[in-house]
């Protein structure tokens, strides 16, 4: 079946969530693709995966206010979470605040959200940033919303495990503080990844092609996940899945 880039990215993210050590994935602000991936992984895992989409009431069982996500993560009850970045560097530092010499910014973005905490408390943070370019993947971020690695003396149970872009999937090695190329999406090449990345990546000899979403997964996604994610992200669901919604 023909698929859209968004559907490939949802499929890649869902595959990272289907592992026994992830029983609860939470999805934060402005994250329609991660949200759809979490719901798809839940379906594929026969409902064994708990999914919390924190914005709004749909797919959100939290009942103790805005702090509950962070209290839950602080106790180790959130096993996976997604973070993005205006800039991401080779040590997996992420910048969600802006470009320029803070506070003298050239461009301002929304802000750090809960990243500075979730990065320390959630063991499987998946970095998600579709735009794969040298303006995003920089040698050093202009502002560290959340650091990729910490000194040994700092209490830290969480951190980055993977990075998904429009070109590839990478893993992150915390000890080496370095990304490793895991697979390149269909139609793209290792050279293209290197040309568009501003930091050093560990490139293995053989880099496989990312698995395309199966017909079965695409059908599930379009028929069952799309109307669910529309409850939180009506604009995204309209654009990608042609789902009409009141909002």
């Amino acid at each position: 079946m023909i698929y859209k880039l968004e559907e490939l990215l949802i499929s890649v993210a869902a595959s990272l969530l289907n592992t026994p050590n992830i029983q609860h994935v939470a999805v934060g602000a402005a994250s329609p693709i991660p949200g759809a991936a979490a719901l798809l992984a839940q379906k594929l895992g026969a409902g064994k995966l708990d999914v919390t989409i924190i914005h709004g009431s749909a797919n959100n069982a939290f009942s103790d206010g805005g702090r509950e996500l962070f209290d839950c993560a602080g106790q180790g009850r959130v096993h996976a979470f997604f973070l993005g970045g205006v800039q991401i560097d080779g040590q997996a530092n992420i910048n969600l605040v802006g470009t320029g010499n803070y506070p003298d910014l050239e461009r301002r973005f929304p802000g750090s959200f809960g990243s500075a905490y979730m990065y320390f408390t959630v063991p499987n943070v998946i970095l998600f940033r579709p735009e794969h370019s040298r303006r995003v993947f920089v040698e050093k971020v202009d502002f560290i919303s959340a650091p990729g690695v910490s000194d040994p003396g700092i209490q830290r149970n969480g951190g980055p495990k993977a990075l998904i872009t429009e070109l590839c999937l990478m893993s992150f090695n915390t000890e080496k503080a370095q990304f490793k190329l895991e697979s390149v999406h269909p139609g793209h090449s290792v050279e293209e990844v290197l040309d568009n990345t501003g930091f050093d990546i560990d490139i293995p000899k053989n880099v496989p092609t990312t698995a395309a979403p199966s017909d079965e997964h695409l059908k599930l996604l379009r028929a069952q996940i799309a109307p669910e994610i529309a409850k939180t992200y009506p604009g995204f669901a309209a654009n990608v899945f042609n789902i009409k919604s009141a909002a």
Partner: protein
Amino acid sequence: MTTFLDVSELADLIPNGAHIAIPPEYSFVPMELVRGLIRRYTKNLSVLCVPIGGMAVDLLIGAGCVKQIEAAAVSLGENGLAPRFTDAVVSKKIKMKDSTCPAIHTALQASEKGVPFMPLGGIIGSDIQAHRDDWRVVDDPLGNGNGPILLLPAIQPDFTIFHSPLADRAGNVWVGRRRELLTMAHAAKQTLVTVERITDGNLLANEQTAAGTMPALYINAIAEAEGGAKPLGLTDCYERDGDAIRYYAAQAKTDSGFDDYLAQHIYTNTQQAAQ
């Protein structure tokens, strides 16, 4: 003792320079009260977004009501950047105190408990922390070898404001599971609420409604404002008006577009004539 007023009287209670706490975009945002603050040309507000700001905050900034924002982020969600916010921060028309979601919740919890500060894990090594000279990193003060930890000073807003579906005549207000509103009201010096409607029953008389009710004890004044969260949504009452929000997001991209929006949607006929 809760008093019952109209929305413009409620807005009059918030003086220039007040420190106000506003809930996040997805529900219970007091849009009509925000429009009331803009109509009375309120100035120099310090706004605490709990923990993320949206259209309400962008409007207040664009209308010149704001001196300072403290937030984990300000955005229009699916409709992109909050244009008045990003413009005002880059051009330094407002001061931005960058924070992170749990830091705002925790600092309000400190006020809720009446203690001067609270510790919070994580965050150390972030440039958020590096730029906050009111925050402190200390070594585990109990000497149990847990390493450095961040201390956050309590935040006590002058006012918490929100819009709820329902109040009763005793001044109790329904909040359902939006329990950050309780933390915000417990922490603030005063809480002002607009509601869709006022019921003759007592929300505390029944355990099912009592569990989702903020008692009048914390609420200083209530105003009835049907549709008071529009064009944003209100849980179980109405969906957000996507077209209206997209229209705002487009208008707010330019100074003149934003001014047109204020003239069309916020200022009264008299105010438009005066401009």
